[in-house]
């Protein structure tokens, strides 16, 4: 208890917390007004340059300090050993040494990590496909149906819930009572036992638990897919549809040859966006078990290696792998958009 109170010396009662918040707001506001005051002091051609610097400068500076510089440090850190992120920290024995690509080798030599890559592959393939497929299906089914707005909100609502909250919601669905003959109060196991089968420990058994967690991510992301694709479907010009109808196109053909090609770029955007989100999602695995049941994925392993097992070099290497996996998807996305524009 003493340790915690020292660590968090800044936090006090509710009043002082809110006081801190207002202090923060005042400081941020003052910075903003200061920038504007400085900018307004200058006029004319030179003034325009000063104003540009005053307006853009703080953002660029902030990003450079808080994003670019740390990213460079992380890349550097991936080539060092040691228990602490700060290379100068600790005794000479625990201090980090340059080890070349050793941390990257550990990515496949460390027991458990190959499984992490396998699980991540399942996530990054299944989540975008399932979420987009289900979102698209739902968007088409309810398009212009009665109560469309309400129907959409039902699917979309999980987007507003934190992944931690979503994981708790689903842990209850998956809840497994291990005692023999016990009543299953988790919905899925209740159904399974009703059907005469044995209850399943969805969260605790690899490799099945990975799919249980993937379902949670699909549940969250389908709403996003549905919203974007529904907007894209509504943006298809009426005359295209009418023309197709006059040509006698209907049913699945209409979807296959008219709707889908028209929303192709949106589908790609949705797929890639969800893939990126999936690669970075750490909360679900963390809140479910922390990844200790063989269901860890890269984003969660980054946290575990950096903070739990104190291997920041390996953590940094994992962060770089995530970056390397994410960037081509984003570049592809941008190129795709250019092509359509």
């Amino acid at each position, binding site marked *: 208890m003493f340790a915690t109170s020292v*660590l*968090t010396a*800044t*936090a006090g009662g509710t009043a002082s*917390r809110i006081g801190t*918040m207002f202090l*923060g707001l005042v400081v*941020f506001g003052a910075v903003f007004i200061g920038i504007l005051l400085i*900018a307004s002091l200058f006029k004319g051609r030179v003034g*325009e340059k000063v*104003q*540009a*610097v005053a*307006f853009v400068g703080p*953002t660029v500076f*902030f990003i450079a300090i808080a*994003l670019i510089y*740390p*990213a460079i440090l*992380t890349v550097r850190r991936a080539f060092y050993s040691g228990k602490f992120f*700060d290379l100068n920290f600790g005794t000479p024995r625990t201090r980090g040494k340059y080890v070349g690509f050793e941390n990257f080798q550990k990515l496949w030599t460390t027991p458990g990590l190959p499984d992490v890559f396998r699980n991540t592959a399942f996530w990054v393939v299944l989540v975008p496909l399932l979420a987009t497929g289900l979102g698209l*299906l*739902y968007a088409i089914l309810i398009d*212009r149906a009665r109560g469309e*707005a309400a129907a*959409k*909100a*039902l699917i979309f*609502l*999980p987007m507003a819930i*934190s992944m*931690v*909250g979503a994981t*708790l919601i689903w842990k*209850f*669905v998956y*809840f497994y009572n291990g005692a023999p003959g016990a009543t299953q*109060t988790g*919905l899925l196991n*209740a159904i399974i036992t009703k059907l005469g089968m044995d209850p399943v420990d969805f969260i605790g058994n690899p490799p099945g638990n990975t799919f249980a967690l993937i379902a949670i991510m699909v549940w969250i992301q389908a709403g996003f897919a549905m*919203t*974007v694709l529904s*907007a894209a*479907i*509504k943006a*298809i010009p009426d005359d295209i549809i*009418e023309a197709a109808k006059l040509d006698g196109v*209907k049913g699945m053909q209409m979807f296959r040859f008219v709707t889908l090609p028209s929303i192709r770029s*949106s589908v790609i*955007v949705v797929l890639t*966006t969800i893939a*990126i989100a999936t*690669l970075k999602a*750490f909360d679900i695995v963390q*809140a479910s078990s*922390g990844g200790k049941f063989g269901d860890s994925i890269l984003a969660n392993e980054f946290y575990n290696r950096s903070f739990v097992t104190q291997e920041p070099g390996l953590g940094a290497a*994992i*962060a770089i792998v995530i*970056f390397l996996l994410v960037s081509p998807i*984003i570049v592809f996305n941008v190129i795709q958009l250019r092509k359509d524009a």
Partner: protein
Amino acid sequence: MSTATPPPVSDQVADEAADVHTDTPKGRRRHKSAAGNAARAVTSPWASAVAIIMAIAWTTPTFGLLVTSFRNQKDIQETGWWQALGSSFTLDNYSQVLSGAQGQPPLTDFIVNSFVIAIPSVFLPLLLASLAAYAFAWIDFPFRNALFVAVFALQIVPLQIALLPLVTMYQQIGIGGTYWSLWLSHSAFALPLAVFLLHNFMKEIPPSLLEAARVDGAGHVRIFFQVLLPLITPALASFGIFQFLWVWNDLLVAITMLGGNAGEGSNAPLTMVLNNISGTLGNRWYLMSAAAFVSIAFPVIVFLSLQRYFVRGLLAGGTKG
């Protein structure tokens, strides 16, 4: 609420989707187009059935936990929530988690924390990004486009790659584990997207408006305040809601910056406590369900009341990770 950045969808699309959610008679009429009729003709009787099944599947998990949060501890252990009808309901679980039970710190503190973390984390990037976006859109200066592309491109940097050095940096300047470290981190991670979004909105404002103000002798500061800010309020709202939900629902930044400390008197947000509870309370669903809904309530209220802005922001590329 952790999606990466989809490139912008055209504004018309954004408007249409936003309209759907307002459900005005006008909006509805506008959408009576051929595409829908055709789509419906595909599957009619099956369509409704499948849609209803999906809607039920998507709602049931949340509904189940919600019902559970109002049930007695004994009932929860003995019967499923679907058998709750007829048994009694209680608010005990909520009063227990809010005031602290089973060795858990009271949740009220963490509700305050979540707000204290989220509000300045929305405020700061909005201020900085609106200035930068204005300059990128309307002031001519050397390397403008290159710089804008660079800022925009930084969206591809995943949080993970910047997190650990930031923790060390904050400790070195003496704000490790404070609210400041969280505000600054959330702001930095939000800036590339915020600049990009607001820039897109500002670009859409007719140049003639700005020209007119310039002819009247207004400088950039005055134009920014008197002409642009009022016009981009919807964009500010869109981004603000996004950032609020994102910060409120964040676990990674909080858990990293605060060193995993979610004990009594800590600066931890609700998500961190919820994450802890998920491990420590194990099967005590009467507490977990109530705690989950305490944390879910605020973003859901924000989402439901401001859905229009939310959808608009989403379609303009307003998601991130």
